[in-house]
Structures are given as C-alpha cells and as structure tokens.
C-alpha cells in the first residue's frame, strides 16, 4: 500500500444533497454503532436516526430515496462533520458509497479524516452550494464532476470555482494522502527530533 496510494484527481457521479448547518458526527453515525472493532458494514448506519423513525420505518431522508441510491457525491452546507473525532463518520459515508463531499465548510477533524481515506472535501460559496443542491433535486440521475486538480465542480452547463486547498490538492492528486509509510521512512529525522526534546528519555525508542 505504501507505494500504491492512488491519486485522486477527479470524482464523477450522481449526487445526494443533505441540507443543514452544523451537522455533527453524532448525526452522521450515532454512538451506539461505534461498538465495533472494525469499520466494515458501517455504511448501513450512516445517518441512521434520520433515515429511520422510532418504529424503524424508513423516512424521507435523501439517502433513502431510490433516485439517490447510487450517488457518490455528497452536497452539504456549513460546518459539516463537527463534534466527535470519530472516523466512523467518514467511514460510514464512504461505505454507503460516497467518494467526494462538496460543502460550504467542514469541521477540521472530519476533513482530516476524509483526507486519510482519500475522500476530497471541497468547498464553494453558500449560494453555489444551494444552487447545486436544488439542481441535484431536479436532476438526480445526472452527473456532478468534482475536479480536485482544477478546483472546480461541474454539473450540467455550470462550472463552479471550488476551493480544495493546497495541502489537500497535493495530497490527493499526487497520491500522498496515506502518509504512514512516508513518515516511517524519516526515522533518522524522527530520532533527531526526539533527542532534542528534554522530556523524551534518551530520545531513542
């Protein structure tokens, strides 16, 4: 895997809008579904308490609508993913089928977790997001293209300027979003840093 981190330059597919500001990770995946030692199978629990009512009957949540069942681009509003650091949240979305998220803004830990999974979190203005969400409502079978390299989101005849950010763009486009092996290869520099820290015993592992 270390040498095989795929490049993510562009994500295309149908979209699903989930509206609202400050959608927290407790909503994305309630805590009771965290009692697992593996992320496998979490997709079915994404937004569970909003997708199912108290009688466990499906609601009209966008992710329950047949027209969005194959969507892989999620379109959200501001401060999406705030709250708990649980990676279970992007894991659940990814395992439901989401490959890219477009929104007004993202909470930091959530965006970092998405990047660790190779999922772009791309931002655009509130007006552009609202317009995109409305277009998706009317055109659930049409594709949205998130171009990470060009920093654009394209749908129908519209190409919207989006912000990816230098760090995220480089990481995704150059395939360096999984940094474990890369960081491990800097062992000499790690040891040197540790040696200079007064609280680390001898600086050596």
């Amino acid at each position, binding site marked *: 895997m270390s040498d095989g981190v795929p490049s993510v330059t562009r994500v295309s597919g149908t979209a699903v809008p989930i509206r609202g500001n400050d959608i927290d990770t407790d909503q994305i995946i309630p805590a009771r579904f965290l009692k697992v030692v*593996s992320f496998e199978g979490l997709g079915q629990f994404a937004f569970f308490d909003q997708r199912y009512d108290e009688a466990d009957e499906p609601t009209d949540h966008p992710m329950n609508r047949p027209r969005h069942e194959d969507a892989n681009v999620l379109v959200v509003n501001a401060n999406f993913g*705030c709250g*708990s*650091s649980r990676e279970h949240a992007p894991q659940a979305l990814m395992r439901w089928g989401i490959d890219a998220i477009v929104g007004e803004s993202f909470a930091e830990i959530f965006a970092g977790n998405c990047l660790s999974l190779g999922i772009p979190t791309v931002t655009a203005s509130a007006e552009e997001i609202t317009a995109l969400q409305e277009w998706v409502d009317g055109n659930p079978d049409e594709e949205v293209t998130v171009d990470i390299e060009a920093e654009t989101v394209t749908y129908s005849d519209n190409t919207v300027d989006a912000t990816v950010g230098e760090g995220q763009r480089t990481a995704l486009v150059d395939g360096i*979003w999984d940094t474990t092996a890369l960081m491990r290869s*800097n062992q000499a520099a790690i040891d040197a840093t540790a040696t200079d*820290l007064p609280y680390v015993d001898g600086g050596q592992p």
Partner: protein
Amino acid sequence: MSEGTLYDKVWDAHRVTTLPNGQDQLFVGLHLIHEVTSPQAFSMLAEREMDVARPELTLGTVDHIVPTDDRTRPYDDAAEEMMQSLEQNAAEAGIELLDPTTGDQGIVHVVGPEQGLTQPGKTIVCGDSHTATHGAFGALAFGIGTSQIRDVLATGTVAMEKKAVRHIEVTGELGEGVTAKDVILGIIRRLGTDGGVGYVYEYGGEAIEALDMAGRMSLCNMSIEGGARAGYVNPDETTYAWLESTDYFEDNPGEFERLRPYWESVRSDADADYDDVVTVDGTALEPMVTWGTTPEQGVGITDPVPEPSSLPEDKRQRARDAQAHMGVEPGETMEGYPVDVAFLGSCTNARLPDLRRAASVLDGRTVHDSVRALVVPGSQRVSTAAEAEGLRETFVEAGFEWREPGCSMCLAMNDDQLVGDEVCASSSNRNFVGRQGSSAGRTVLMNPSMVAAAAVAGEVTDVRDLPPTGTPGSQPGVSV
C-alpha cells in the same frame, strides 16, 4: 502568521520535517488510546506488518463503553469484545493500560493529567475530539481520527497543517457562581461553533489565570465545540503546583526541576504576534445554559432565549429547528424548564473541584422526586478522593446515584442513556440531537453547581437563587 506563541514554539520543537504534501510531520510526546477508536488502527497496523514505534510514550485506558454500574466481566458482547481487543493490543505492544483493576482507570482526559504525563510543551494526541483538554497545561493537544492513530502507532509522529493562533483574553474577575464552563460557553456563543476552524485558541487574561487546573481543563476541553482543534493556557505556578504533586514527579525526583526551564521557555512571549485577538469581559458573564442543539445556542441564566429572527440569517433556521426540538419559547429565560435527568460527569466536568461544587449545593438538600440523578466521577482517583472527603455521602444522601468512572451519559455508548424525550441537565459538552442516547432526548448544558441546582428543583434554576438550607457550607455559589 503567529510568532513567539506557545503554539509556534511547541510546533517547531516537534517538527520532524515538512512532507511533500505540505503538511508538517510532528513528533508525538504522548499518545493516549482508548477502546473505541484504537482497535481498527491496530488492525491496520497488523495488515501492514508494522509494530508500535513508541509504546513507552503511549498510555491506554477504558472510558467510552465501560459500564458505570456493574463492572463484572464479561461486559455485554460488543463492549467485552472492545475491551479484550484493547487489552490484547496493549499487551502485545507493551503499552501500559489503566484498566479498572489498577485503581487508575478513568476518562482519558482526566487520567493523563492525573498521572503527571500531561505536561507543558508536549504534543499530545488521542482519538478523541476533547483532547484539547490537555492544553490546560500548556501542551499542544488535539484529537485525531483512527487512520491518524495508525500513523502515530506506526511512527510516533503525525502529519498536520499548521493553524493560525487566536488569543482570547478574558478580563476581570468572574462573578459568584460563574465557572470556567460558563466562560467557554460564553466564548462559543460569541464566536460560534465554527468560529475556531483554522485556529488554535490561546486563552489568557486575569479570569483565566485565576482558574485552577480543573477549570482550565473544562475551558480547553470545549475548544472543539467552538471549532478549534486545540486550545491552551500558558503554564504558570498553578500548572507547576499540580505537576509537582503528581506521582510521576514524586517518583522521579529531579525531573521537576530539570524540566521546569523547558516549560518556562515555551510560554508565549510578551510580544508574541497573534493572527487574531478577541477580548471577553469576564465580569459580564453569568452561569450559562444552552437552549438549543449546538453548544453556541446558549444564554446566561437570566437572559431570554433569543428570537430566531434576531439572529444572523444563516443561524435562524437552525435556531427554529432547535427550539422546536427542545420545546422552548423565545423571549423567556430557561429558568423553570422541567428536567428529568441530572448528569454530573464527562471529561468536561467530572474532576474533584467539579464534584465539590455540586456537593456544596446538594448538602442539606434532596433531589426532586421527578429527577433521576447520577454522578459519574472522572476517574477512580477522583472517586477515591471524593469518597475520602465525604462527597459520595453527600451525593447519595441527596438522592444521586454514585457510579463508576467513564464517559457514561455524555455520549451514551453504555447503558447510561436518556429515554424518549427526557430532558437532561448535563455537565457534559454536547447538546446535539441524539447525543445522550435518545433521538428525541433533550440536553441542557450547564456547570456542575447548576446541574445540582436543577436536580434539586426539578427544573433549570439559577443556583445563586436557591433558598438557603440553614446548613453551614451549603450556601449556593460558594466557591470551593
């Protein structure tokens, strides 16, 4: 760009290199792990045939799923599996695990400082968003996801982008009954739940310097609720006094004096440059309560719940939805809002001074008939110390259930949950819909004394207005 701040200094001291993706690789001085977010990371490590790089800088405890009532093993199936997974991973890697048999178990953000391992100038990470708590000691501490836990386990380092620094100056002396919890809820109300995105918060000023370490931890703890991944207070004599009294420094004579110059050196310079400065009048704050479903939806206890139309346009719909969920009316104060459950616990407010404050309100009073009240000490050490002081007796006599340490009803991963649309007066940190285990449940965040007052009154109450009981030491608002 900031310069000369604690954040800059600690960052620079721990920076290994800049990675080709533009992120800095930071050395991690303390990695705290718990049972919910680490098992998958250990599995990923095993898949990649990698070992744990620095077990000696890693510490484990169990808090999220552990039961707080009957702790007889095995726990329920899922909880038991997670426990065993952590036990096995820790044993195989040689990581110390503070499980309930040690007498040192507790909420991870209570345990680290208690053990003397949370120190100024360290980088501290944990797979938990409330890791900023450790910033109370002048550490650079932040929450990470499970893939990043894998990175830290495998390398002892983490990849991060440097943030801007906002200094938040809280001036003046806090009023009677006003605590660190009220300060942070006031800050979040003003700056918003996403106001801190892209920033680290440095808290300073007279009101902050006067806080004890428990208060500073409550403050830094909720930085993430304001969108800031990390928050900190510069270390001072209060910090050093805490550290000197820990087992770690008592067991390692000489270490305290040896490390102290480093701690002093990482303090923000008097002429440090900040990316932003915000000043908050500490004297104007009063006990805060939330009326909605995000931590920024709060008011002073004597202030009315806002009309959604009076809020900025982008916050109005959220406010209307929240008021509908909570069943609160704008224009009225939160006083008198009926409460079904009182929860005193969590990494925000379950330390000894928190328990003392609540107990001083409960002394000579009893929990209202309609209220189910539980106190969940932050750690076994807190629990033992509280028992020694007679606090347990006070809580139990008043009608609180005294529980074993854990995260409990803050996130409701164990059996401690709201039922239906119950209202919880809670000393925790999140009032999100569904957070406390019931999607119809309602959470009102407040400080520990206010939780105790709500438990007694059966409704949200200004602790400063509780009628006296006639028992010495039971006056409300007594600062202990």
